[in-house]
């Protein structure tokens, strides 16, 4: 049975979380069951969470071999990094 079930990636926003985080994956025959299963497997029913499920096949990932071309240019230009500004205490979650 599981052989016919596609893989789904699960993203969860926890009760006080600001964004959905990838928490893992599971097999399910369709989106509705993937949501139900994600809730059982990954949330332990924490109230006030939001779940996204996405077919793994629909996710396009950057290729590891492109790593240098994609990320190296920004690493060598530290003046682009916002690390030189003192942040006021009131600004949270930046």
């Amino acid at each position, binding site marked *: 049975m599981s052989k016919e079930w596609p893989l789904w990636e699960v993203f969860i926003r926890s009760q006080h979380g600001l964004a959905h985080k990838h928490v893992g994956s599971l097999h399910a025959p369709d989106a509705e069951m993937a949501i139900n*299963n994600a809730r059982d497997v990954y949330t332990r029913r924490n109230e006030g969470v939001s779940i996204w499920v996405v077919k793994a096949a629909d996710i396009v990932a950057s290729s590891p071999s492109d790593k240098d071309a994609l990320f190296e240019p920004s690493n060598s230009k530290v003046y682009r990094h916002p690390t030189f500004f003192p942040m006021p205490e009131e600004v949270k979650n930046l």
Partner: protein
Amino acid sequence: MAKIEYLLRQGDNALILSQQLSQLCGKGPALEEDMALTNVALDLLGQTRMWLGYAGELEGRGRDEDRLAYLRDSREFRNVLLVEQPNGDYAQTMVRQFFFDTWHYFLMRGLLSSTDRRIAEIAEKSVKEVTYHLRRSGDLVVRLGDGTPVSHAKMQAAIDELWTYTGEVFIYDELELAMVEQGVAPAAEALREAFLQHVSEVFAEATLPMPDPGAYMQRGGKQGRHSERLGYILAEMQFLQRAYPGVEW
């Protein structure tokens, strides 16, 4: 006292069904189903503890939830016959669950306005869990009923097997009528209507024919008259407690 008896009935339903679902741990048709089934079992066990705990308090004879669960014999159990029916195949497990969840959901909704504050509180905690149980089992009934010819046939066989056990919860005896009288429990008729309505909606979607609401219904569980199956369930469940009574664990 009637209320203690009423609490035992609620607790025993949840306890026996939870015990049966626990036996499926590691045997579900898929990993995710396995998780879901054991989740439902855990929910029901949590509800059992609340019902039996309250029953023990009211009784005031020092029987806590453990003593009530592990040291009563089958004649003293008050669960309906539906929950002691065998797990069978997955169709039977899910049909049993769906019938139970449907009734359970409407009962908990009704108990939210119980004149007994503790009962209303237990119902409030339970209703969130039961809402999910109902959604899940209904979903699976549709999937299996409207699945392949084989799954449809298995669902039909499970319904034929179990339908006769669905009426017991609506056959109120004097004890339950007294509970309705005192505003502790909801009346049977409204529950039964809601139950039949929901079952017929889900079955229509599942391409399963609605069974005859006027069919003969088995009864006796609520009064302690059980099928022999309950004896086996209890023998396994209570073994350790009876072998080593009074041990802290």
